Protein backbone atom coordinates (compact mmCIF):
# COMPACT_ATOMS: atom_id res chain seq x y z
CA UNK A 1 0.00 0.00 0.00
CA UNK A 2 1.34 3.39 -1.03
CA UNK A 3 1.10 5.34 2.22
CA UNK A 4 2.66 8.79 2.46
CA UNK A 5 2.50 11.88 4.68
CA UNK A 6 -0.61 13.23 2.92
CA UNK A 7 -2.44 9.94 3.41
CA UNK A 8 -1.44 9.93 7.07
CA UNK A 9 -2.82 13.43 7.49
CA UNK A 10 -6.06 12.59 5.65
CA UNK A 11 -6.69 9.37 7.57
CA UNK A 12 -5.68 10.72 10.95
CA UNK A 13 -9.32 11.15 12.02
CA UNK A 14 -10.06 7.52 11.27
CA UNK A 15 -6.93 6.45 13.10
CA UNK A 16 -7.98 8.41 16.17
CA UNK A 17 -11.52 7.02 15.91
CA UNK A 18 -10.14 3.52 15.56
CA UNK A 19 -12.07 2.91 12.35
CA UNK A 20 -9.10 2.09 10.10
CA UNK A 21 -9.04 -1.34 8.57
CA UNK A 22 -6.30 -3.64 9.86
CA UNK A 23 -4.23 -3.23 6.70
CA UNK A 24 -4.60 0.57 6.76
CA UNK A 25 -3.77 0.66 10.44
CA UNK A 26 -0.59 -1.28 9.80
CA UNK A 27 0.41 1.05 6.98
CA UNK A 28 -0.36 4.08 9.15
CA UNK A 29 1.75 2.92 12.08
CA UNK A 30 4.63 1.82 9.87
CA UNK A 31 4.69 5.25 8.21
CA UNK A 32 4.60 7.17 11.46
CA UNK A 33 7.35 4.95 12.81
CA UNK A 34 9.51 5.95 9.88
CA UNK A 35 8.43 9.64 9.54
CA UNK A 36 9.30 11.81 12.53
CA UNK A 37 7.25 14.72 11.22
CA UNK A 38 4.06 12.65 10.94
CA UNK A 39 4.74 10.97 14.30
CA UNK A 40 4.98 14.37 15.98
CA UNK A 41 1.85 15.57 14.23
CA UNK A 42 -0.10 12.48 15.25
CA UNK A 43 1.08 12.80 18.85
CA UNK A 44 0.18 16.51 19.02
CA UNK A 45 -3.25 16.06 17.46
CA UNK A 46 -4.00 12.99 19.56
CA UNK A 47 -3.04 14.83 22.73
CA UNK A 48 -5.07 17.87 21.70
CA UNK A 49 -8.19 15.80 21.01
CA UNK A 50 -7.82 14.02 24.33
CA UNK A 51 -7.43 17.32 26.20
CA UNK A 52 -10.36 18.92 24.42
CA UNK A 53 -12.65 16.03 25.29
CA UNK A 54 -11.58 16.21 28.91
CA UNK A 55 -11.93 19.97 29.09
CA UNK A 56 -14.55 21.11 31.56
CA UNK A 57 -17.37 23.11 30.03
CA UNK A 58 -17.28 26.84 30.50
CA UNK A 59 -19.56 27.96 33.32
CA UNK A 60 -22.32 30.16 32.01
CA UNK A 61 -23.10 33.38 33.91
CA UNK A 62 -25.45 32.61 36.81
CA UNK A 63 -28.08 35.08 35.65
CA UNK A 64 -28.20 33.75 32.09
CA UNK A 65 -30.92 31.18 32.74
CA UNK A 66 -33.05 33.79 34.52
CA UNK A 67 -32.59 36.20 31.62
CA UNK A 68 -33.56 33.57 29.10
CA UNK A 69 -36.62 32.58 31.11
CA UNK A 70 -37.60 36.23 31.48
CA UNK A 71 -37.16 36.72 27.75
CA UNK A 72 -39.17 33.68 26.77
CA UNK A 73 -41.73 33.09 29.51
CA UNK A 74 -42.29 36.80 30.16
CA UNK A 75 -44.40 37.66 27.12
CA UNK A 76 -46.21 34.35 27.30
CA UNK A 77 -47.08 35.03 30.95
CA UNK A 78 -48.50 38.43 30.13
CA UNK A 79 -50.41 36.94 27.24
CA UNK A 80 -51.75 34.19 29.46
CA UNK A 81 -52.96 36.72 31.98
CA UNK A 82 -55.51 38.04 29.51
CA UNK A 83 -56.25 34.69 27.96
CA UNK A 84 -56.63 33.12 31.39
CA UNK A 85 -59.11 35.71 32.62
CA UNK A 86 -61.24 35.95 29.49
CA UNK A 87 -63.10 32.60 29.92
CA UNK A 88 -63.76 33.39 33.58
CA UNK A 89 -65.26 36.76 32.74
CA UNK A 90 -67.40 35.42 29.94
CA UNK A 91 -68.91 32.62 32.00
CA UNK A 92 -72.71 33.10 32.43
CA UNK A 93 -72.44 32.80 36.18
CA UNK A 94 -69.80 35.51 36.40
CA UNK A 95 -71.69 37.72 33.96
CA UNK A 96 -74.87 37.40 36.04
CA UNK A 97 -72.96 38.23 39.19
CA UNK A 98 -71.42 41.24 37.50
CA UNK A 99 -74.85 42.44 36.35
CA UNK A 100 -76.24 42.03 39.89
CA UNK A 101 -73.40 44.01 41.38
CA UNK A 102 -73.91 46.75 38.80
CA UNK A 103 -77.65 46.90 39.53
CA UNK A 104 -77.01 47.03 43.30
CA UNK A 105 -74.52 49.82 42.80
CA UNK A 106 -76.99 51.75 40.68
CA UNK A 107 -79.71 51.38 43.35
CA UNK A 108 -77.28 52.41 46.07
CA UNK A 109 -76.13 55.46 44.14
CA UNK A 110 -79.75 56.40 43.46
CA UNK A 111 -80.64 56.04 47.14
CA UNK A 112 -77.69 58.14 48.23
CA UNK A 113 -78.58 60.71 45.63
CA UNK A 114 -75.51 60.49 43.51
CA UNK A 115 -76.14 60.91 39.83
CA UNK A 116 -73.12 59.90 37.80
CA UNK A 117 -74.05 62.44 35.15
CA UNK A 118 -73.81 65.27 37.67
CA UNK A 119 -70.31 64.30 38.71
CA UNK A 120 -67.72 66.42 37.04
CA UNK A 121 -64.09 65.71 36.44
CA UNK A 122 -63.14 67.92 39.35
CA UNK A 123 -65.17 65.69 41.70
CA UNK A 124 -62.74 62.87 41.12
CA UNK A 125 -59.75 64.87 42.28
CA UNK A 126 -58.26 63.54 45.52
CA UNK A 127 -58.80 66.86 47.30
CA UNK A 128 -62.48 66.88 46.36
CA UNK A 129 -62.90 63.27 47.41
CA UNK A 130 -61.26 63.94 50.78
CA UNK A 131 -63.38 67.04 51.33
CA UNK A 132 -66.61 65.22 50.43
CA UNK A 133 -65.68 62.31 52.66
CA UNK A 134 -64.83 64.60 55.54
CA UNK A 135 -68.13 66.44 55.14
CA UNK A 136 -70.06 63.19 55.02
CA UNK A 137 -68.37 61.92 58.18
CA UNK A 138 -69.16 65.11 60.06
CA UNK A 139 -72.77 65.08 58.89
CA UNK A 140 -73.17 61.47 60.00
CA UNK A 141 -71.60 62.28 63.35
CA UNK A 142 -73.95 65.24 63.84
CA UNK A 143 -76.96 63.08 63.00
CA UNK A 144 -75.86 60.48 65.52
CA UNK A 145 -75.38 63.10 68.21
CA UNK A 146 -78.83 64.54 67.52
CA UNK A 147 -80.41 61.09 67.62
CA UNK A 148 -78.77 60.26 70.95
CA UNK A 149 -79.83 63.59 72.43
CA UNK A 150 -83.41 63.07 71.31
CA UNK A 151 -83.36 59.64 72.85
CA UNK A 152 -82.03 61.08 76.07
CA UNK A 153 -84.88 63.58 76.19
CA UNK A 154 -87.46 60.87 75.70
CA UNK A 155 -85.96 58.67 78.40
CA UNK A 156 -85.57 61.60 80.75
CA UNK A 157 -89.24 62.49 80.36
CA UNK A 158 -90.26 58.93 80.80
CA UNK A 159 -88.15 58.42 83.93
CA UNK A 160 -89.38 61.64 85.47
CA UNK A 161 -92.97 60.66 84.96
CA UNK A 162 -92.30 57.22 86.34
CA UNK A 163 -90.68 58.65 89.47
CA UNK A 164 -93.13 61.57 89.96
CA UNK A 165 -95.30 61.51 93.13
CA UNK A 166 -99.08 61.04 93.00
CA UNK A 167 -100.50 64.07 91.32
CA UNK A 168 -102.64 65.36 94.15
CA UNK A 169 -101.30 68.88 93.92
CA UNK A 170 -101.73 69.01 90.16
CA UNK A 171 -105.37 68.22 89.90
CA UNK A 172 -106.10 71.77 88.85
CA UNK A 173 -104.04 71.44 85.76
CA UNK A 174 -105.19 68.03 84.84
CA UNK A 175 -108.68 67.46 83.61
CA UNK A 176 -110.70 65.98 86.39
CA UNK A 177 -111.96 62.57 85.95
CA UNK A 178 -115.61 62.21 86.55
CA UNK A 179 -116.37 59.24 88.66
CA UNK A 180 -118.70 56.95 87.04
CA UNK A 181 -122.10 56.60 88.57
CA UNK A 182 -122.23 53.98 91.22
CA UNK A 183 -118.52 54.05 91.70
CA UNK A 184 -117.34 55.54 94.97
CA UNK A 185 -113.86 56.48 95.82
CA UNK A 186 -113.55 55.71 99.49
CA UNK A 187 -109.90 54.79 99.83
CA UNK A 188 -106.67 56.66 98.80
CA UNK A 189 -105.88 53.81 96.58
CA UNK A 190 -108.95 54.39 94.56
CA UNK A 191 -107.83 57.98 93.94
CA UNK A 192 -104.49 56.81 92.78
CA UNK A 193 -106.05 54.21 90.62
CA UNK A 194 -108.26 56.83 89.04
CA UNK A 195 -105.31 59.01 88.29
CA UNK A 196 -103.45 56.15 86.89
CA UNK A 197 -106.37 55.58 84.62
CA UNK A 198 -106.31 59.20 83.59
CA UNK A 199 -102.58 59.13 82.83
CA UNK A 200 -101.93 55.87 81.19
CA UNK A 201 -98.41 54.61 81.70
CA UNK A 202 -96.48 53.39 78.77
CA UNK A 203 -96.83 49.70 78.25
CA UNK A 204 -93.13 49.40 77.58
CA UNK A 205 -90.37 51.64 78.73
CA UNK A 206 -88.62 52.02 75.46
CA UNK A 207 -91.54 52.18 73.07
CA UNK A 208 -94.34 54.49 74.12
CA UNK A 209 -97.34 54.76 71.87
CA UNK A 210 -97.94 58.01 69.97
CA UNK A 211 -100.79 59.22 72.17
CA UNK A 212 -98.99 58.16 75.33
CA UNK A 213 -95.95 60.13 74.27
CA UNK A 214 -98.03 63.24 73.81
CA UNK A 215 -99.41 62.85 77.32
CA UNK A 216 -95.92 62.31 78.70
CA UNK A 217 -94.59 65.45 77.07
CA UNK A 218 -97.53 67.38 78.34
CA UNK A 219 -96.92 66.15 81.87
CA UNK A 220 -93.26 66.96 81.71
CA UNK A 221 -94.00 70.50 80.59
CA UNK A 222 -96.39 70.86 83.51
CA UNK A 223 -93.67 69.65 85.86
CA UNK A 224 -91.35 72.35 84.52
CA UNK A 225 -88.76 70.09 83.15
CA UNK A 226 -85.44 71.97 83.12
CA UNK A 227 -84.40 73.10 79.69
CA UNK A 228 -80.90 71.96 80.33
CA UNK A 229 -82.08 68.38 79.97
CA UNK A 230 -83.27 69.10 76.50
Amino acid at each position, binding site marked *: MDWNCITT*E*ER*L*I*DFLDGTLAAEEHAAFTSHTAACASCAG*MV*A*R*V*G*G*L*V*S*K*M*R*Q*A*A*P*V*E*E*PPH*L*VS*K*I*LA*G*TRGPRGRERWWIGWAPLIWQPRFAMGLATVAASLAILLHAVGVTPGDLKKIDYRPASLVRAGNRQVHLSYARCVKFVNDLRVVYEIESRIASSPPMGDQTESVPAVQPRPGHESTSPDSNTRDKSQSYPRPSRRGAPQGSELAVLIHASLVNNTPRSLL
Partner: protein
Amino acid sequence: MRRHTRRVYNLCYRFTGNAAAAEDLSQDVFLRVYRTLGSYQPQYGAFATWLTSVARNLLVDHYRRTRRDRLTDSIEDAMPQLEEKHSMTRAPDRLAEGAELSAQLQRGLARLSPELREAVILRDLQGLEYNEIRTVLQVPEGTVKSRINRGRIELARILGEMGVRPT
Protein backbone atom coordinates in the same frame (compact mmCIF):
# COMPACT_ATOMS: atom_id res chain seq x y z
CA MET B 1 -33.02 23.91 30.74
CA ARG B 2 -29.70 24.54 32.48
CA ARG B 3 -28.06 21.73 30.53
CA HIS B 4 -29.21 23.18 27.22
CA THR B 5 -28.22 26.67 28.32
CA ARG B 6 -24.72 25.54 29.19
CA ARG B 7 -24.41 23.70 25.91
CA VAL B 8 -25.48 26.69 23.84
CA TYR B 9 -23.40 29.12 25.88
CA ASN B 10 -20.31 26.95 25.50
CA LEU B 11 -20.81 26.74 21.76
CA CYS B 12 -21.22 30.51 21.48
CA TYR B 13 -18.33 31.24 23.80
CA ARG B 14 -15.96 28.87 22.06
CA PHE B 15 -16.90 30.24 18.67
CA THR B 16 -16.82 33.96 19.47
CA GLY B 17 -14.22 33.94 22.26
CA ASN B 18 -16.17 36.71 23.95
CA ALA B 19 -18.23 36.09 27.08
CA ALA B 20 -20.54 39.08 26.63
CA ALA B 21 -21.25 38.21 22.99
CA ALA B 22 -21.79 34.57 23.98
CA GLU B 23 -24.32 35.63 26.60
CA ASP B 24 -26.24 37.80 24.16
CA LEU B 25 -26.14 35.14 21.47
CA SER B 26 -27.36 32.47 23.90
CA GLN B 27 -30.35 34.60 24.73
CA ASP B 28 -31.01 35.16 21.03
CA VAL B 29 -30.82 31.42 20.42
CA PHE B 30 -33.43 30.61 23.03
CA LEU B 31 -35.65 33.46 21.88
CA ARG B 32 -35.54 32.16 18.33
CA VAL B 33 -36.17 28.61 19.53
CA TYR B 34 -39.11 29.84 21.56
CA ARG B 35 -40.60 31.67 18.57
CA THR B 36 -40.05 28.84 16.11
CA LEU B 37 -40.88 25.98 18.45
CA GLY B 38 -43.92 25.17 16.34
CA SER B 39 -41.76 24.42 13.32
CA TYR B 40 -39.70 21.79 15.16
CA GLN B 41 -40.31 18.29 13.86
CA PRO B 42 -38.96 15.38 15.93
CA GLN B 43 -38.20 13.36 12.81
CA TYR B 44 -35.64 15.97 11.74
CA GLY B 45 -33.44 15.04 14.70
CA ALA B 46 -33.09 15.35 18.43
CA PHE B 47 -34.05 18.58 20.12
CA ALA B 48 -30.45 19.19 21.16
CA THR B 49 -29.33 18.92 17.54
CA TRP B 50 -32.02 21.32 16.43
CA LEU B 51 -30.99 23.70 19.20
CA THR B 52 -27.39 23.47 18.03
CA SER B 53 -28.47 24.17 14.45
CA VAL B 54 -30.29 27.31 15.52
CA ALA B 55 -27.25 28.41 17.54
CA ARG B 56 -24.90 27.71 14.65
CA ASN B 57 -27.02 29.74 12.21
CA LEU B 58 -27.02 32.66 14.61
CA LEU B 59 -23.28 32.34 15.08
CA VAL B 60 -22.74 32.48 11.33
CA ASP B 61 -24.93 35.58 11.17
CA HIS B 62 -22.97 37.09 14.02
CA TYR B 63 -19.68 36.24 12.33
CA ARG B 64 -20.77 37.94 9.11
CA ARG B 65 -22.12 40.92 10.98
CA THR B 66 -18.89 41.48 12.88
CA ARG B 67 -16.57 40.80 9.95
CA ARG B 68 -16.05 44.49 9.27
CA ASP B 69 -15.04 45.06 12.90
CA ARG B 70 -12.55 42.24 12.72
CA LEU B 71 -11.09 43.57 9.48
CA THR B 72 -10.50 46.99 10.98
CA ASP B 73 -8.88 45.55 14.09
CA SER B 74 -6.01 43.18 13.87
CA ILE B 75 -6.96 39.80 15.28
CA GLU B 76 -3.50 39.30 16.67
CA ASP B 77 -3.79 42.56 18.61
CA ALA B 78 -7.39 42.19 19.66
CA MET B 79 -7.53 38.63 20.84
CA PRO B 80 -4.98 38.80 23.67
CA GLN B 81 -6.73 41.96 24.94
CA LEU B 82 -10.09 40.27 24.78
CA GLU B 83 -8.75 37.24 26.56
CA GLU B 84 -6.99 39.33 29.16
CA LYS B 85 -10.09 41.38 29.81
CA HIS B 86 -12.14 38.24 29.95
CA SER B 87 -9.79 36.63 32.44
CA MET B 88 -9.91 39.66 34.68
CA THR B 89 -13.62 40.33 34.67
CA ARG B 90 -15.58 37.16 34.00
CA ALA B 91 -13.20 34.24 33.55
CA PRO B 92 -15.82 31.59 34.32
CA ASP B 93 -13.63 28.74 33.15
CA ARG B 94 -10.52 29.83 35.01
CA LEU B 95 -11.91 28.36 38.16
CA ALA B 96 -12.18 24.98 36.52
CA GLU B 97 -9.42 22.49 36.14
CA GLY B 98 -7.17 23.09 33.15
CA ALA B 99 -8.12 26.72 32.98
CA GLU B 100 -4.85 27.70 31.42
CA LEU B 101 -5.19 25.16 28.63
CA SER B 102 -8.78 26.28 28.12
CA ALA B 103 -7.68 29.87 27.61
CA GLN B 104 -4.88 28.84 25.26
CA LEU B 105 -7.29 26.62 23.39
CA GLN B 106 -9.60 29.58 23.03
CA ARG B 107 -6.84 31.68 21.54
CA GLY B 108 -6.00 28.90 19.13
CA LEU B 109 -9.63 28.43 18.10
CA ALA B 110 -9.91 32.13 17.36
CA ARG B 111 -7.21 31.80 14.73
CA LEU B 112 -8.96 28.96 12.91
CA SER B 113 -11.23 29.64 9.97
CA PRO B 114 -14.92 29.60 10.98
CA GLU B 115 -15.66 26.42 9.01
CA LEU B 116 -12.89 24.47 10.72
CA ARG B 117 -13.55 26.09 14.09
CA GLU B 118 -17.22 25.14 14.22
CA ALA B 119 -16.48 21.59 13.12
CA VAL B 120 -13.82 21.08 15.81
CA ILE B 121 -16.00 22.68 18.50
CA LEU B 122 -19.02 20.57 17.64
CA ARG B 123 -17.04 17.34 17.57
CA ASP B 124 -14.42 17.69 20.31
CA LEU B 125 -15.92 20.22 22.70
CA GLN B 126 -19.63 19.55 22.25
CA GLY B 127 -19.27 15.82 21.66
CA LEU B 128 -21.65 15.54 18.71
CA GLU B 129 -21.66 12.53 16.40
CA TYR B 130 -20.78 12.92 12.73
CA ASN B 131 -24.37 12.53 11.57
CA GLU B 132 -25.50 15.20 14.04
CA ILE B 133 -22.82 17.57 12.82
CA ARG B 134 -23.88 16.82 9.26
CA THR B 135 -27.44 17.83 10.21
CA VAL B 136 -26.25 20.99 11.89
CA LEU B 137 -23.85 22.11 9.17
CA GLN B 138 -25.97 20.82 6.27
CA VAL B 139 -22.93 19.31 4.53
CA PRO B 140 -22.07 15.69 3.66
CA GLU B 141 -20.48 13.54 6.32
CA GLY B 142 -17.25 13.30 4.33
CA THR B 143 -16.94 17.05 4.39
CA VAL B 144 -17.65 17.05 8.11
CA LYS B 145 -14.84 14.60 8.80
CA SER B 146 -12.50 16.43 6.50
CA ARG B 147 -13.14 19.75 8.24
CA ILE B 148 -12.70 18.21 11.67
CA ASN B 149 -9.45 16.57 10.64
CA ARG B 150 -8.02 19.71 9.06
CA GLY B 151 -9.22 21.78 11.98
CA ARG B 152 -7.50 19.58 14.53
CA ILE B 153 -4.22 19.55 12.63
CA GLU B 154 -4.34 23.31 12.13
CA LEU B 155 -5.21 23.91 15.77
CA ALA B 156 -2.38 21.68 16.94
CA ARG B 157 0.00 23.60 14.69
CA ILE B 158 -1.25 26.96 16.03
CA LEU B 159 -0.93 25.83 19.61
CA GLY B 160 2.56 24.54 18.83
CA GLU B 161 3.48 27.98 17.52
CA MET B 162 2.08 29.48 20.70
CA GLY B 163 4.35 27.20 22.71
CA VAL B 164 1.50 25.07 24.01
CA ARG B 165 2.18 21.36 24.18
CA PRO B 166 -1.07 19.61 25.03
CA THR B 167 0.64 16.26 24.91
